[in-house]
């Protein structure tokens, strides 16, 4: 039995969505699909949580939205990274990497406290 999926950390969902959108305009369903596929389903993201996050980011002008036709000819709302969103993603991922590195250093420490 595979390990149960981990919850997405508070605040990191935005960064993941921005990352997803670096591949090009996507609608909410495909964003979620890409994230699930990339994480092999090990990250639990609620469908219901995605949309408020998308709308909030749109209001902050990190992403733009446009109505278009999906691959199976349905009307869908496509999101696209803005320049501002790109900048945000860069800053976020940088600080995330540093965070992970720092935390990792601690968690893998070999020396005893002396």
């Amino acid at each position, binding site marked *: 039995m595979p390990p149960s999926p981990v919850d997405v950390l508070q605040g990191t969902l935005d960064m993941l969505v921005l990352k997803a959108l670096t591949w090009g305009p996507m609608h909410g369903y495909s964003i979620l699909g890409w994230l699930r596929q990339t994480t092999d389903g090990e990250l639990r993201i609620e469908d219901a949580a995605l*949309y408020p996050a998308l709308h909030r980011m749109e209001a902050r002008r990190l992403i733009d939205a446009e109505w278009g036709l999906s691959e199976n000819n349905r009307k869908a709302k496509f999101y696209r990274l803005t320049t501002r969103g790109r900048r945000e993603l860069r800053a976020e991922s940088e600080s995330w990497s540093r965070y992970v590195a720092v935390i990792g250093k601690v968690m893998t420490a070999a020396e005893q406290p002396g």
Partner: protein
Amino acid sequence: MSHTPIWRRYLRFVRPDVRADVDDELEFHLAMMVDAHTAQGVDRDEARRRALAEFGDITRARQLCEAIDRRQQRRSDWGEMLESVVRDARFAVRALRRSPGFTATIILTLALGIGASTAIFTIVRGVLLRPFPYADPDRLVRVYERRPRGDDRNVVSAGNYVSWVERARSFAVLGAHMAPYGISLTGDGDPIQVTTTDMTPSTMRALGARPAVGRTLVDEDWTGDGRVVVLSHALWQRRYGADPGVLGRRIVLDHEPYTVVGVMPAEFEFPAPGVDLWRPVTIDAMPANERRSHNWLVVGRLARGASVASASAEMRAIAGALEREFPQFMSGWGTAVVSLREDVVGGVRRLLVILLAGATLLLVVACANIANLLLTRAHARRREMALRGALGAGVGRLVRQLLTESVLVAVFGGLLGTGAAWLMTRGLLALAPSDIPRLGAVRTDVAVLVYALATTVLSGLAFGLAPVARLLAVRRERAPQLHTILRASDDRAGHGRQRSTRAAFLVAQLAVSLVLLTSAGLLLRSAHRLAAVDYGYRPEGLVAMSLDLPRTVYDSIRKQAELYDRILGRARTLPGVTGVAATTEGLGQSGAMTFSFAIEGRPSTNPSGREDPQPLRAVTPDYFQVLGMPVKRGRAFDARDRADAPSVLIINEALARLLWPSSDPVGKRISFEGRSGPWLEIVGVVGDTRANAAYEPAAPAVFIPYAQKRWNWLSWLTVVARTDGSRGADATVAALRAAVWEQDKQLPIHALSSVPDLYRQGNARRRFATVLTGAFAAAALLLGMIGTYGLLSYTVAQRRREFGIRLALGARAAQVTRVVVGEALGIAVVAIALGTVAALGLTRLLGSLLYEVSPADPLTLGAVTVLIVAVAWAAAWVPARRATRIDPAITIRDA
């Protein structure tokens, strides 16, 4: 899933529909999930159920999304609006700066109109509209007596006041006070003349007056020694440096010590501006049956539930009862109750309303002028508008741009006008006659700013809509031919309509100017008539000085007479003085003491047995000669009329006409005491004189020799000096003052001025109205001239080709000139016809401001008509000359 009504979907084309968008987005997501399930063989219903379960809390997700989007939409709506306003304003500023002369003309014209009307409103607000500085001021009334014949605002007798207090239920409080008068303030720095109002303490209670420092007068003040005084804020500042320690201070008034108990706030001006202090008096201590002499002013606060009407009714009943109880004094007398506000400002309301109307008319003229200027420009910019229209700017966009320009111009004009109003108000206050009440309450307050804002907005709309209406009309008519405007250099289509709109504005402008000019003309004619009034004596070169002797020192007629003899003797020796006389009543003031009397051998028709009281003056023998009053019958006073000689008097022609219409009054005898004498013989009749109100009919008058004056309380005196003009009036005034102070350094001098100055004061309201109306009319006329010039220049520019062809075909220059000037005169004639009708209706409102001039005065109307025609002709002349210099060859080729 979507329950969106049809109309909402259409709305989405205009602006996003938040709810539908969120629904659609979530619905798409669910549909994709359902697809994924059905692809694995689940049936649709089951697939949908699973999708909903997997999705999570869809209701909450939808609510959150909608809330976020709505907030966002609101924010961006505002932002967009602000952005577009800023964009429009920038654009408008650029457009206005392209023609600075034009813009400046409009802004200055508007500033003039708004400034004048706001300045007048500032005065109206302060004088007429501002609440009085008393508690619940609308409950305050004045109660007067009404004379059997004539004056319905007569001062009240002490006895009647006491009866009213006892009987009337309509008033919570009644107070009585004397008219303000001058007394000396000494023992406390230089002796100065101050103005006191002596009042029953209940007057302060009726007013609900609150002190700034200490207390006001209270009923107990009279049970003490009554020697307390409340100071005005101005006197407190001027004399005592606003020292709060002034309370308890002893000051000396007319040689009597008083204790300061309080200071009133600056806005407390009762009963008139300029009162320096208030002293308590009591009426109970006087003989309550004293009903003959009337000298109290009564103020009352209406009781709960009482109104002016109900109080009037009650007072009528009380007056009727008093008439039955005291027929010898009260027969024929009534009462009058008027609101305090009406009493104070009723007399100036008409003047101020007329001035406000004048200023408003000027504003109307200014707006009409601006509308015409804007129309001219709208026409000049038709290509710009057409181009922008062709490039895709919608009608709304163009209208908004025009309106933005108008609003911007209005805002600048309004700001400048408000500043100008502030300055003009200062000027008006300096120019305003001092007898206009409550000028001290005039200030630029919120109401004034609101008024300025409102006039700015209304004016902006009024002249801003003209070019918009024009734009819409042109687009409606010729939208498909916009390209023709771009191509054609001379646009003829729509020209006629455009010109007639502008002509209509010009007609309105000139017609309103005519109303203002007629008013100013009538007032000027009145002023001219007034200057030519025969006063019954020669005011030029006369200097008058009023004195009052403290009766505590000069307590006998002999002491008074001795002092005056010394002063008059000294005055006669002054250089440049050719004659000196004295009278107990001033010249330039009404309200002299009046006395009733009995005529020997003739029963009076009055139940009191006495004739109606008439103003009496005790004068020195050379009085008539110094003033230049002709003796019509009998003789003037002379050295014979000593104190111990038989008592004599002189009356004027007005009184002779009243009492002896068909016989010679000389030799007849009257008595001021009763039917049994002592009798005074009439020895002469002098010509009538007019008091300061030269437009009023000459009042009857009685004169007695000063030497035979028998009332020691009649202690005031006006010294009149005739000068030969070799020295200025000011020098004579100074010398007179020195002559008085040589005799007694403590003597207060009331009024001291040249007599023509007094007349100028008396006619000050009329002059104020004349100067202002004249200024409004001149400004309106100037604007009318600019407007006519503008329209005619436009006409000539429009008809260049036509004139060119005419000239080419051999028309003489004079013929072309006639066409242009003819158009101006045509407009002028229509304006004169309309304006005259309006003027005939409106100038009636000038009413009593006119003196011996009919509102329909043909001379004034004729002169104004000529003036308007002349202005129209002159304004048309320059464009007409331009038309004749059109070179036909160039004009026709350019076309």
